[in-house]
């Protein structure tokens, strides 16, 4: 009697496994069939680097007019709105005076040229970016593949911690819907919406198709873009042969934008 009850339970258990296992296995098989090799990869023309960087030869810029075409090229490419109200302003690349751009380096008595020359300021794509450390949603992050500090606008909740953290003022907040303030929309690039932070992206979308950043292209050689981690690159050659400075170097953020003064 004991024996047959045990046998009964055993049989019942085995048949339960047999009945339920097949649908599960079928589901697994179907899942594998559903995802035959789809792939995600880089485009064949994409430019690659470990850490993109930039050298700006400020000796080429005499007045604010020299910078205008560069700023315009960037802002047009990326649908950056031009808002008159300074407190709502959005900028990716802009003009700065020497003492504002390089507060630690501004001497009491500066030479005339440095005193009056315009300096281009943009996101420094730091090696150690404080903005990424404070972002609560990882909406801004340092991309491991090329060292660009990027924004994922989908994730940005508009808390503006990154704006407080950035020592360079490189970030702007969309206090209002930017679309009405974009004179000429570049249809192949998205705009932003109200409530997100934006900044320079080192033209990640242009690098992906083998183009140089828009500002570099518009600068006519005054700006050079390249891989800082490659000792053979043009940019490293420039850094070897010229004295350069970086913005607020003492903060330890390791900016990737160098200035020849």
């Amino acid at each position, binding site marked *: 009697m004991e024996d047959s009850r045990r046998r009964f339970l055993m049989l019942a258990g085995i048949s339960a496994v047999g009945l339920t296992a097949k649908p599960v296995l079928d589901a697994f098989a179907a899942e594998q069939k559903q995802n035959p090799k789809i792939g*995600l990869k880089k485009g064949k023309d994409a430019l690659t680097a470990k850490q993109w960087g930039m050298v700006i030869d400020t000796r080429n810029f005499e007045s604010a007019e020299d910078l205008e075409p560069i700023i315009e090229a960037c802002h047009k490419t990326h649908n950056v709105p031009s808002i008159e109200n300074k407190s709502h302003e959005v900028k990716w690349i802009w003009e700065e005076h020497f003492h504002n751009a390089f507060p630690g380096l501004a001497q009491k008595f500066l030479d005339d040229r440095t005193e009056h020359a315009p300096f281009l300021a943009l996101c420094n794509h730091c090696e150690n970016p404080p903005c990424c450390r404070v972002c609560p949603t990882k909406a801004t992050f340092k991309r491991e593949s090329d060292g660009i500090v990027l924004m994922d606008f989908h994730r940005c909740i508009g808390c503006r911690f990154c704006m407080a953290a950035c020592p360079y003022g490189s970030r702007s907040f969309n206090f209002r819907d930017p679309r009405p303030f974009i004179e000429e929309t570049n249809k192949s690039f998205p705009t932003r919406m109200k409530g997100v932070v934006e900044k320079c992206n080192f033209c*990640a979308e242009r690098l992906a198709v083998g183009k140089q950043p828009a500002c570099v292209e518009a600068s006519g050689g005054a700006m050079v873009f390249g891989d800082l981690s490659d000792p053979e690159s043009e940019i490293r050659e420039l850094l070897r042969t010229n004295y350069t400075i970086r913005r607020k170097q003492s903060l330890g953020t390791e900016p990737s934008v160098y200035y020849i003064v």
Partner: protein
Amino acid sequence: MSDKKLIIAGVVIFVALIAFPFWFNLGKAAPAPELALTNHAKTANEGKCVMPTDFMKAEHMQLLDTWRHSVVRNAKRTFVNTSGQEFNMSLSNTCLDCHSNKADFCDRCHNYASVRPYCWDCHIDNPKETE
């Protein structure tokens, strides 16, 4: 127990009232929307989307999410589908290149399903200005 009739009548009225939306709308379900394809969508790539139509119907949001992640975070912008074809992963420049009729393609179904994706707050909804 003498109120039995009253209670039963009350329960019947209550159930009828609660079920009002169901019996009132019975048989009046809106028909599933018919999506319009542009001529470009019918002819480009032999009328095939990046993935089979059934997959796109059910999973386009997951696909777009994967695309977004890959493009923004991993710098990989080329999608290779099951038959080995390559596509630029871009909502505005690839999807809407064929489906340039957002109102008759995206919106019809989204309105029917009462979903309001905010893609178009940023992505340009008519990159080629056709229509």
